[in-house]
C-alpha cells in the first residue's frame, strides 16, 4: 500500500475519466508503452508499472488491472502485441486486443507469454481496486472494499479516506473506514485508537490489538490487552455457536447420506451396500448437468436436484428388479449381492467417465459465507446443505406418514401376507420404496457435490457412516436417523478441537459401540412384546 499516496489522485480521477473519449492513436502508443513496462522481469518493476498505469488515469486501466489480476493479460511472443485472454482453458484461447479490446481471434498457448504476478502484486492490485470500489454504486461493494482496507492503511491514505468517510452515506462503510484508520493510528502508537476499536470482533482488528499488546509502550500494551480480553469474552460465545454450527452441518451431511438407507435398510430390511454408489450417481448427475448447461452452474445445480433423484431412483429400480427381488427375506444375501453391485458401479464410473475427480462448480450464491457478526460467519454452502437435509427429511416424513404409498409401505413391511390379502401389490410397493430410498441417496449426492470430491470413491467414504447413523438411531425409525446423525455430528465437532480429528472420530465410534451396549436397539427402539422376541 506504500504506493497508494502517489496513485490515489490518479485513481480518483480515473473514476471520473472512465467515459472520456481520447484520440485512439495516442491511446495505443501510450497504452502499448504502459503495458510494455508491465512486462518487466522483476516483480518490483512490475509494481512500479502498475502504479504508473493507475497514475496515467487511462480509462482502460481498470480492465488492464483486472486482466492482470486474472493472469489473462498476455504478450504475443513474436509481434509483442498485448492481448487479453477471454477463455484460458485448453490449448487454443480466444483473445481480444489489449488496446482496442476488439476480438483478435484465437491464439495457441505456445505463441503467448503471460504477464505474471505474485501474491504481493495481487495484494497491491486488490488494494488499488478496493480503493476504486469505495466509489462503487452498490453499497455492498463499498462495504467489502472498506473491509478489505482494514489493516492495509498507511499515512498516505488517511487524508483521502477521511474525505471519503465524510462523503459516505452508508453508516457501516463509515464505521469500517474509521476502524481502518484507527488500526493505522494504533500502529502509530495512539492509545486513544484502542477505544475506537474496542469490542470489534473483526480479525484484522484483533490482529492489530494483539500486535499493540506486545508493544513496549506499557500504557498502550495495557490498554490493548484489556480491549483484547473484552473481545475474547465476546468471541467465546461466538466459538460456541460456531462449533454448534459445525456440528449441525456435519450432522446434516450424515443425515443426508443415511436417510435414504433408513428407507431401504430400515424399512425394507435390505442391507444395501450399493447405497454409497447411489449417492455417487447423484453427485455425478450434478456434474453432468453442469456440463450440459455451461456457464449456469446455479441453474444446473437446481435442475440436478430432480435429475439426481431420478437417476438414482432408476438405478435403484434396476437393482431391485435385477437383484433384490430374488432375495426376499434373505437380507444377508442382499448385503453380498449389493456389495457386488457397488463394485460394478464404481468401476463403471471409472471406465465410462474417468477415474479422476470431476469439477463441480459452486454457484456464487452458494460460495462465501453469511456474516452474522464480524467474528462469526456461517459458510453458505453448508448452510444450504443443512437446510436441504431438513427439507428432504420433512418431505420423506410426509411421504411416509401422509401418502397412500407410505401407508402401503408400512403395511407391507409390517405384515406382507396380510397386506397382500388386503389387495396391496407388494411387489409394486417394494419397487417404489427402493426407488424412493435410492432417489433420496441421489439427493444426498447432489448436496455432497458441493462439499467434497465427485469421484468414484465418493460412495465408499459415506457407506460405513451411513450404516452407523441408521443403526445408532434405531433401525426403521426415520426420526432416529435424524437425531442420530445430528447428534453424532455435534459430538464429533465438539471433540475435535481438543482430541484432534482422528481421535475424535475414534471416540465417536467407541461411543457408538458403548451406546449400543446400553440400548441394544438404538436410540428409538420398538418397545413392547413385538420387540421382545
Amino acid at each position, binding site marked *: 500500500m506504500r504506493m497508494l499516496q502517489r496513485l490515489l489522485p490518479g485513481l480518483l480521477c480515473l473514476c471520473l475519466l472512465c467515459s472520456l473519449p481520447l484520440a485512439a492513436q495516442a491511446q495505443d502508443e501510450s497504452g502499448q508503452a504502459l503495458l510494455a513496462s508491465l512486462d518487466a522481469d522483476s516483480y518490483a518493476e512490475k509494481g512500479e508499472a502498475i502504479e504508473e498505469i493507475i497514475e496515467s488515469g487511462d480509462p482502460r486501466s481498470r480492465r488492464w488491472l483486472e486482466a492482470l489480476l486474472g493472469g489473462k493479460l498476455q504478450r504475443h511472443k513474436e509481434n509483442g502485441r498485448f492481448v487479453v485472454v477471454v477463455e484460458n482453458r485448453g490449448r487454443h484461447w480466444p483473445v481480444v486486443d489489449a488496446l482496442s479490446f476488439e476480438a483478435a481471434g484465437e491464439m495457441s498457448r505456445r505463441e503467448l507469454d503471460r504477464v*505474471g504476478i505474485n*501474491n504481493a502484486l495481487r495484494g497491491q492490485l486488490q488494494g488499488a481496486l478496493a480503493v476504486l470500489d469505495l466509489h462503487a454504486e452498490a453499497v455492498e461493494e463499498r462495504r467489502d472494499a472498506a473491509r478489505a482496507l482494514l489493516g492495509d492503511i498507511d499515512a498516505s491514505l488517511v487524508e483521502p479516506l477521511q474525505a471519503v468517510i465524510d462523503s459516505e452515506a452508508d453508516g457501516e462503510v463509515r464505521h469500517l473506514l474509521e476502524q481502518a484508520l484507527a488500526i493505522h493510528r494504533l500502529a502509530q502508537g495512539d492509545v486513544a485508537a484502542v477505544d475506537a476499536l474496542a469490542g470489534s470482533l473483526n480479525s484484522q482488528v484483533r490482529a492489530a490489538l494483539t500486535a499493540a499488546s506486545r508493544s513496549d509502550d506499557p500504557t498502550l500494551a495495557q490498554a490493548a490487552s484489556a480491549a483484547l480480553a473484552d473481545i475474547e469474552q465476546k468471541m467465546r460465545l461466538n466459538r460456541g455457536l460456531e462449533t454448534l454450527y459445525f456440528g449441525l452441518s456435519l450432522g446434516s451431511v450424515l443425515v443426508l447420506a443415511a436417510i435414504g438407507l433408513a428407507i431401504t435398510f430400515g424399512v425394507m430390511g435390505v442391507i444395501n451396500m450399493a447405497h454409497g454408489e447411489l449417492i455417487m450417481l447423484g453427485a455425478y448427475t450434478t456434474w453432468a448437468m453442469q456440463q450440459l448447461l455451461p456457464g449456469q452452474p446455479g441453474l444446473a445445480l437446481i435442475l440436478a436436484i430432480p435429475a439426481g433423484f431420478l437417476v438414482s431412483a432408476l438405478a435403484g429400480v434396476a437393482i431391485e428388479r435385477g437383484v433384490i427381488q430374488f432375495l426376499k427375506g434373505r437380507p444377508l444375501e442382499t448385503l453380498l449381492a449389493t456389495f457386488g453391485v457397488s463394485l460394478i458401479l464404481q468401476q463403471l464410473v*471409472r471406465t465410462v467417465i474417468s477415474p479422476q475427480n470431476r469439477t463441480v462448480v459452486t454457484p456464487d450464491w452458494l*460460495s462465501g459465507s453469511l456474516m452474522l457478526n464480524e467474528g462469526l460467519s456461517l459458510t453458505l454452502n453448508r448452510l444450504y446443505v443443512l437446510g436441504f437435509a431438513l427439507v428432504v427429511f420433512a418431505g420423506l416424513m410426509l411421504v411416509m406418514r401422509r401418502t397412500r404409498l407410505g401407508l402401503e409401505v408400512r403395511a407391507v413391511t409390517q405384515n406382507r401376507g396380510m397386506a397382500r390379502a388386503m389387495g396391496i401389490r407388494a411387489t409394486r410397493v417394494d419397487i417404489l420404496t427402493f426407488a424412493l430410498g435410492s432417489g433420496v441417496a441421489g439427493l444426498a449426492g447432489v448436496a455432497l457435490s458441493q462439499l467434497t*470430491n465427485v469421484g*468414484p470413491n465418493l460412495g465408499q467414504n459415506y457407506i460405513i457412516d451411513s450404516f452407523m447413523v441408521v443403526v445408532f438411531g434405531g433401525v426403521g425409525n426415520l426420526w432416529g436417523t435424524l437425531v442420530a446423525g445430528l447428534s453424532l455430528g455435534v459430538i*464429533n*465437532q465438539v471433540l475435535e478441537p481438543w482430541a484432534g480429528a482422528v481421535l475424535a472420530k475414534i471416540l465417536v465410534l467407541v461411543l457408538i459401540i458403548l451406546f449400543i451396549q446400553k440400548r441394544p436397539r438404538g436410540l428409538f427402539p420398538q418397545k413392547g412384546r413385538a420387540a421382545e422376541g
Partner: protein
Amino acid sequence: MTIRQRKTHPSLWLAASLFGLGMATPALAQEDDPIKVGILHSLSGTMAISETVLKDTVEMLIEQQNEAGGLLGRELEAVVVDPASDWPLFAEKARELLAQEEVDVIFGNWTSVSRKSVLPVVEELNGLLFYPVQYEGEESSENVFYTGAAPNQQAIPAVDYLMNQVGVERWVLAGTDYVYPRTTNKILEAYLKSYGVADEDILVNYTPFGHSDWQNIVSEIKAFGSQGKKTAVVSTINGDANVPFYRELGNQGIDAADIPVVAFSVGEQELTGIDTGPLVGHMAAWNYFMSVDTDANYDFIDAWIEYTGDEMAVTNDPMEAHFIGFNMWVEAVRKAGTTEVDAIKDAIIGVSVPNLSGGYATMMPNHHITKPVLIGEIQDNGQFSIVWETPSTVAGDAWSDYLDGSRDLISDWRKPMECGNYNVVTGGCGGQAEQVAAE
C-alpha cells in the same frame, strides 16, 4: 510397427536358412522377444484417481519408443497389472511381474506404503523400479530409482521462498497422518527452528485419509493466522482430502493474500477436481508444472492430449518424472547394450536426459535425480503460474540433514562403496551390509 515386422521377418528367415535353424533359433528367440516393461499402478481403489494417468503415460512413452524403432532393435511391450490400491497386492503383483512375466523394468507405485511393500520383492528378485512420486526420502535401494522429489527438492525450497520472498513468520504444517507428511513436517520443523522460528509460531496438524470435514481445522488456522504475524500453511494433505479442504478455505474466506497455502501434493491432476475460482493465489511446489513455457513441454502436452483424445487433459509432475525415468532407462539400455539389470544399474548412474522445464535431469549415485524446484500459484483455469524457481537444479538427497537418524548417512551405489546408507561417522554400511554381501 506392423511394417517393421514385415521388414524383419524375411531377413530372419534368411538368417535361419543360412546358418541353419539349430544355431539360429536361440539367437532368433533373443532378437525377437519384445522387451517387457511392467506397469504397477492402481487402476481401481482409492489411488486409481492419481495412478491411472501414470499408467497411461508409460504406455504412451512405450508407444512413442516403438514408433521410433523400439530399443536395441526390439519391440517394447507393456505389461499392465492392477494392484488395486491394496498394499499386499502390490508386493504380490511385483512378484508376478518379475517372477512370472520376467519384465526387464517396472514403472510404478504412488504411495510410500506401496513402495515399502514392493521394496523387499524388488531387492530379492533383483528388479528395476522407477518410482515417480515426491516422497519423504529416508530410503535408498539398490534396485529403486527415485525420479520424484526428495524433501530437499520440494519442501525446503518452498519454505525458503515463503520465508524470504513472502516474509512468513508463522507456520501451519497441515498434513494427512501418514509417513510422508510426518517426515516432511519433522524436517521442516527442524529447518524452521534452525532459522529461529519459535515453537508457538508453528502449528502442526494431522488428519485422517480422505478427511472431508475441515470446518474446525480451517477456523483454527484462521485464528492462528490472526495474531498479527504473516502466516502461511504448508500443506502435505493427501489427494482426496484436498477438495473439501480448499472448498472450506474458500468459503471461510481465507484469501491467498492473507494466509497463502503451499501444497506439496496438489498438482494439475488434483485441481481438475476442484473449482479453482476461490483458490487463485494459493501455491504449490513441484519440479514441473503444465504451464512451463518450453517447446519440449508443449510437445509433451500435445502428444498427451493426442494420446488421451481429451482436449482438456492435463499433465503433472509425476508424469514428467516418468517421462524422465523412462528416457533415463532407455539411455542406460542403449549405453549398456542390454536390458540386463546389473548392467543397467551401473550404466544409468550419471545418465542425463532433458526434462520438460528446459533443463537436464541427471541420475545421481544415490539413485535420486537432479530437478529444478518451481513454485506456482493456482490460476482460475486450474493451472499454476510459476512465480519462482531455483536458479539451478537441485540434487535429490536420500537422507535428510535435518533428522537425527539420517544426518550421518550417505548413499552411493557406485563401486566400490555400493551402499545405500553409508554412515560417515561409524564408517560402516548400515544394516544392509550383510544383505548386500548375501546377494
